[in-house]
Every structure is written in C-alpha cells, then in structure tokens.
C-alpha cells in the first residue's frame, strides 16, 4: 500500500492540531510563535500534497511559496513585538498581556 493523499491529510491535521494545542495552552510567547509556525507548516504540507494530486498547474506550490515568505515576514515582526513586550513586562508571560481586559 502506498501513501495516498489521505495520509498526508492526516499528518497535516496532526501537526496542525499539535500546533493549535500548543498555542492555546502554553504561556510562553516564544513557544506560541513557534506553534504558529507549526500550523503554517502543516498547511504548506497539505497544499503541496494536493498539488501533487491535482497536477494541472503549480498553484499549490506557489501558494506554499508565498506562505513561506509571509511566514518569514511575520516571524520578524512578531519577534520584534516579543522584544518590546519583554521590555514592558520584564518577561515573556502572555498572561500579563491583559491591557485589553475589561
């Protein structure tokens, strides 16, 4: 038996779920950012997998390419925000980011 698209779907789902649980559970801002990267990667995997299934064009891979670019930009800005956050709060605990609290 060979791998089908469903196996890639399963794998991507698993990585995505792990990433989302990590984002929801961890309080460390850096780990949260990394979890976001996990989720993005899982989506990339899924896109490329489907592109392998529907081979008319390279739209899936192109999309994944752009996702990589955007993820890179987002990580840059995100880490800058983490630095500022660190300066404000002295730590990286996301529980202290409650200025929008009622």
């Amino acid at each position: 038996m060979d791998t089908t698209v469903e196996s890639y779907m399963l794998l991507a789902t698993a990585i995505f779920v792990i990433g989302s649980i990590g984002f929801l559970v961890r309080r460390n801002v850096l780990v949260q950012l990394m979890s976001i990267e996990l989720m993005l990667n899982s989506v990339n995997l899924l896109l490329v997998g489907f592109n392998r299934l529907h081979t008319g064009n390279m739209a899936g891979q192109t999309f994944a390419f752009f996702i990589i670019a955007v993820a890179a930009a987002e990580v840059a800005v995100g880490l800058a925000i983490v630095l500022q956050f660190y300066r404000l709060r002295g730590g990286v605990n996301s529980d202290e980011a409650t200025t929008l609290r009622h």
Partner: protein
Amino acid sequence: MELLTELFPPANFTLLGFILLLPLLGAFVNGIFGKRLGREGVTLLGLSVIFAAFVGAIITYAMLIEHGHDGAAPKFHFMAWNWLELQGAGNGMTFRAVPLDVAFSVDALSGTMVLVITGIGFLIHLYSSSYMAEDPGFYRFFAYLNLFIFSMLVLVLGDSLPVLFVGWEGVGLCSYLLIGFWFNDDANASAGKKAFITNRIGDFGLLVAMGLLLYYVGALDWDGINAGKNSLLQPVKIWPVGDEVPIARFLPGGLADVINAPRFVNAATLVCLALFLGAMGKSAQFGLHVWLPDAMAGPTPVSALIHAATMVTAGVYLVCRLSGVFVLSPMAMAIVAGIGAFTALFAATIALVQNDIKKVLAYSTLSQLGYMFLGAGVGAFEAGFFHVLTHACFKACLFLGAGSVIHAMHARIHDTETSQDMRNMGGLYKFMPATALTFLAAWAAIAGVPGTSGFFSKDEILLMALTSRVTGPATISGGQYGMVVENFVWPEWYSYVLYGMGFLTAVLTAFYMSRLVIGIFFGEFRGWKIVEGWIDPHAAHAGAGHDTHAALAAHDAHGSADPSHAGHADHGHDDAHEAHAHPHEAPGVDNMDGPRPHESPWQMTLPLWILGALSVVAGLLNAHLIHIAPLGHLLEPIFAGASKRVEVSELAHSFEWMGAALAVFGACAPGVAVAYWMYVKQGGAPARELAVKFRGVYSFLQDKWRIDEFYAETVIGALDALADMCVWFDKYIVDGILARLSAFLVQLTGSLLRQFQTGRVQAYAAMTVLGTLIFGLYFAMPHAEVHEVFDDSSGSYKLSAAPGLGYKYRWDIDGESGWDRGDKFGNQTEVAFQLKPEEQRTVRLEVEGPFLVTSSYERVLSRPRGEMAAVEPAAAEPQRLKVRPARKAPPIMPGTQVPAGHPTLPNSPSAAPHGAAKGTH
C-alpha cells in the same frame, strides 16, 4: 332708519361684526401693548371699545324694534365664514350634511342681552379704571375684561350651538383669568381653577346635548333646531343597557322582571337634561355651585360683571334660547324648576349667617339665579329672562357698592378678609352717602319693595311658579304622533311646592339683605377709632390707602391662616412694604386708629348712580301687574312657539294682585321688619343668642351645608386615590419593570459577557476554535442532496447524490420497500431508472456521515402523460395530497435533516412537472 337698514340689511347684518370685533381688538391691543400704552391709554382704549359696542347695541336694538312692528320676531343674521361641514349626521329621518358656520344673529332676546352686556360692561369698565388704578396688572385686567365682553357677546350672538359653545368656553376662560387675577396668592389661583373645572363638568353636558341634537334633529343652529325639534319626540330606551341586566339572572322571577323592565324617556328629556347640566355649571345651580362663592377672591368689578350680571346668566339665556326644545319635555322642565327653587332656598339659608359682604352677595346671586331657573322651568321664560335683566342692574349695583365700601376700608385695614367683614363696618352712611343711597336703591329692588324692578320681576316669577306648568305633547296619551312618549304629568302639588320655596326664599332674601345693609351703613362704625387728620405712619411708600391685595399679603393675617402667604417674594412694588411690619392689630374701636372713611371718586360713583336708578325704574319694562310691558311685548314672539305647550291656569289673573300683596306684606315687610328689630333695635343680640342655642344648625349653615367637604371626600378623594394608584403604577411597574428591570437585565448580561473579555489572546483563540468546531459540525453532519436529471422522451431518471467527506449511501429506487442492496451503506453515488408513462415511484436515499449519523431523502417521481404541459406547482401540491394512491410518504424521522428541496417544505423549487399528481388527466 332707512339709511341704517340700507347699511346693515337684516340678512347680512355686519354691525354685529363690529360689535364683536371692537372688544376683541381692545383685548388684543391692551394685552400686547398695554404696558407701553400706559394707564391712561389702556383706560381710553378699553372704555372706548366697549362704549362703541354699546352704541352699536343700541342701534341694533332700535332697528329690531323698528322691524318688529308687524308682530313677527325680527332677526338679523350675519355670516362671518364657513367653518366646517359635518358629512352626514342624524338618524334615518334627519340624516344630512350639517354645516357648522361661524354665523351670528340677533333678535329681541339676544339684543337685550347685548345691551345689558355692553351697557353694564361699560359701567364696570369705568368703575375699574379707578378701582384698579394702583394695581400693577392694570393693563392685563382691561385686556381680560375686554376679552370677556367679546366672549360673552359671541355667546349671546351666536347663531348656533357650536358658536355659543365657543363663547361659553371663552367666558369660562376669562372667568378663570379674572378670578385668579392676583395669582400670586395660591387661594386665588385655586379659586380660578375651581371655577374653570366646575364649569367644565357642565360643558360636558352641553357637548352631549350637541351630539344628541345632531343625531335626532340633524342641525345645530337655532333655525334648524326649531324646525326639526319635533324629531326629538321619540322614546329612547335608557334601561336596561343592552338586553338585560346580568345580575337579574340570579334573582327570582318577579324581581328580575321588574329590574329588567325597559324604561323609556323622551329624547327631548335627554337633550334638555344635558343642556341643563351645562347651564348648572355655568349658572352655578345646586351641585355645581361650589365655584361661585370662592370666585369672590377676584377683584370686585369682576364679581360684579361676571358673577352678577353676565356670565352666570348664560345658562338662563341658553334655556330661554332653546325654549322650544325644553318645553317638549315636561320632566326636564320640572327638574329645572325644582333645582332652581331648591338652589334659591339653599343659598338664602347660607347667606343668613355669612359675615363677609362679598360672600353674602355671592350667595344672594346664587339665590336669584335659582329664581331665574324657577321662572324658566315652569314655562315663564319671559319672567325668568326679565329677572335676568333686573338682577343684572341691582346686583351689579350691589357689588360695585360693596367694592366702594371695601375701597374705603382699605384705607386702614389692608387684609382681605378683615376689610370685607361686616362686623368691622357700620355707620358708613355718614361717610359715603352716594354709595349708601345707591346701595339702598339696589337693596330695595332685591328685597322686593313695591315699585322697584326686583319687585316686578320676582313677583312675576312667584306668580308663574304657582300658576304655570309645562304640558307638552308627551303627556298627552296618544299625543301628536300617536304614542305615549313619556309617562310624566306635571303634578298638581308641584306648583304649590315651588311657590312655597320661592316665597320662603323671598322672606329670607329680604331678611339677610336688610341685615347686610344695616350692618354696613347703619349703627356705629366698628372698624377703628376715627381720628381726624390721621396719617398712616407707613404711608411714605407708594399708594398708601389703596394697596393691592398682592402687597397686602406681606402684612398679614388676622384670621387668615393661609400658609401660602408666608412664601411671597414676588410682588411688583413690594420690597418697601415688606421692610416695615405693620403691627398685627385687630380691628376695633379700641385697638386701631384711622382716618375718616372716604367716598369713592366719580368713576366709581357714577356707575353706582346709574345702576341704582336702573334698579328702581327698570321694572317698568315688564310690569305685567300694571300692564306696562314694552319688553314683554318685544319678547313675546320669541317665546310664542314655546308658550303653546305651557299652560297658565286661570289663577294667574285672579291671583295677580293678591300675589303681589302677599309678596309685599308676607315676604318683604316681615323680612325687613325682623331684620330691623334684630339688628337695629336689639343691636344684634337675638342673632347671637340663636347662634349659641342652635349651634349645630348655625355651623351647618355657616359651613355652606358642607358641600365642598363632601365633594372633597367623595369625588376629589376618588380622583386622589386614582392618582395615587397611577403613581404607584408608574413608580413600581413602569419604572420598576420597564426601566429598572430592563436595565438590570442588560447589566446582568453585560457582566456575564464581560467575563469573556480577558484580554488574553489565548482565550480569544480558544473561542475561535470553539466556533470553528461548531461550524465544523455542520460539515460533519451528512446532507442528503440528490440531483435529478429527467429525460422526457425515454422517461429515465438519473439521480446523483452529492458527495461529501466520509459519506456512504444506500438507495431504494426499485419501487419495492426495503433498500436495494440490503441494509449496508455503500459508495454508490449515482443511480438511474426508467419509468413507464404515468408511473410513479418513490425514491429514497439515506446518507451516513462520518459519525454514523444518517440523513434521508425521499421523493415521489413520476412520468407525466405526453401532452400535459408543465403543471402549476401550486395547484399540483394539494391535488397530489388528495389523489395520491394509498402509499403515502413515510413521515420524516425526527432527528434527521430535511434537505431544502424537500416537497413538504413550502417553497419547493422543483415542483414543476416532476412531482405532480394528476387528478385531471
């Protein structure tokens, strides 16, 4: 005269317009520009417009007399403009469009009233120019007075009930404004309010009468009413309302029958009673009289004009004007006469024990008004109306004289109540001869001294009370219309009762008026010790002797416990007065020193002279006794129609002189004599002894029979309770539930929702995931959608099921029950089958989703006959339900989802030609 007739033709008598407009103009200008015009300007304007109106009234009257030579009642019309038109009113007989026009008319009746109004009005304006000279609200007073004259003129000159009603309300308004003229004092404002509200209760009656007249007669103008008044002779069932009284069901048969027996009255009775209710309010008959004594809170000229001469006579005018309608109902007339007589007696008893001179005069007015209604009620409209005229003269004279006396008393005593108290006066004859003489002339008239106007008019009324009765068509069984409309016959004894009450009232009137005169003008002066050349030590401030009542509140209160006096800060010129404090001195020869009481200036005494003279000689206008009756002659044609239903017994002629003698020697003389003995000879001692001996009766009379208190307990108490209930409702239910409860709910929801706003991104992300989950459930549930392709020519159907993640399908298309390939779910998404023509088949599909939840789909597919075109789906639906063969669609299982295209849903999109059952092939 011909010139005048040419100028003012009877059909378009524009002089009426002038007579009406001039006082209105005066009111307008005085009201708006009064302050700028100054005292003289306001006086000039106010007096001249009334005088001009008076001249107009004289001209009108002259023309009326001229035109009336041939015996018919002359009537001049003036139509100002079309106001409205009611689209159809009245019942079957009288249904037509009713125009309401602003039209005026004058005949002898209203002409006389106009003369009285403008003439006496002018005299009172003249009087007030001096009486109110020191008042800061001078121009306002004249504006209101002019407005009052205008409204009263509208009332009497109106050609129809609505226009009369406009005037009616106008005089009510002016009465309110003038009674509460010194509104800074709460008591005055309350008195004004009381007058207006009590009037309003009467106005309700007038409105009901207008409605009834519209319904039965179909017209509201005098000509129309007179023409159609016979339509009022219909029985109206007033009891029971509906078919039966509900309680009667629980009562034994006989009693129930009695209760349920229908009672009928004449429609005319209803109309007349409603009209009389209005008249009761305006003319202060018993029940709605409570405002008149309180109205003495206004300035004395107001009392003279409004509450003696003109406004209170509006009710009598109304009855006289609609005399033709009133006589159609003997019952109503009997009630009118009865209430009139009772009011006369009742008010006279109260006046016996009053000490305030204005109150005595107020109750005497009430009593005389009762006489007027007594006269009108027994059918003697002429006599009643004549009494209006004479009463206007002598009562105005009395009030103005009282004003003159109060004016003199104010030189020393500034408090309202004390300065009007009879016990502080006395012996003023020496100091104020003009006032005294005219007052005595008017006293003679009201007491019934033979030869005076009051004698003739009162005597006539008493005579008529005894001998006249209203027969009317309703008492004749069979009647004009062949039916008994109302079972009421004027009782024999009733006339005697009325006469007795009237006679007793005459005795009492003579007594208390003599008491009043003696108390004011004779004996020794009891107000203060007269010191020649006495100067008021505090007279440096403006207008020493003639302070206004508003200022007087500052140095207040012997016997005045009005708490509102304490809170005054806003009088026009009062600061200086409040700076000094008059020592609270009680009036009395031993306590106070003061100047000589002085006579009033010419502006005040001239009207007194004129009115006094009139009181004496005006009787000759209608002195039936000695057969000199020019006025009666003029008024005869107006009441001719009504007189047909009035029966005057033979006694009238034979008893004439006897009745007059009785009135003089039985009523007037004893009354005067007893008063003279009691107060002059015995110095008032017997009165005091009687007051002590019959303390209960005395206090009952002095408390005005405690009617005000009764009303306060019952009617006003009920309204207060209702108001309290409404306050409770507003506070707890409206505020509590609508406002506070809803606010509370919103706050509760807000505080609940606020818990979600933690400010932490993770929490928000968790909620996003939750939402995604819920959303995802939709996709996780299976949806059974089937796409059909139908081939007409071969009758084959291709069905394809919609794909979905994890779907498994099973079909049933072969027409037999049970799934096609057993109960297992498979992956078959497309099926096809063929139908023979006119064959139907039920197709089912069940889809199982990933969580083993199933959803099903079912349809009946058929193949129509070749030539049938597309059938309208709306018609197809019910037909299908009717005609379908035994196999019905199994009901949708609960818990499954019904796809949007399912035929049992109302907007099934694919109804056309596929799924229709045919009843008409």
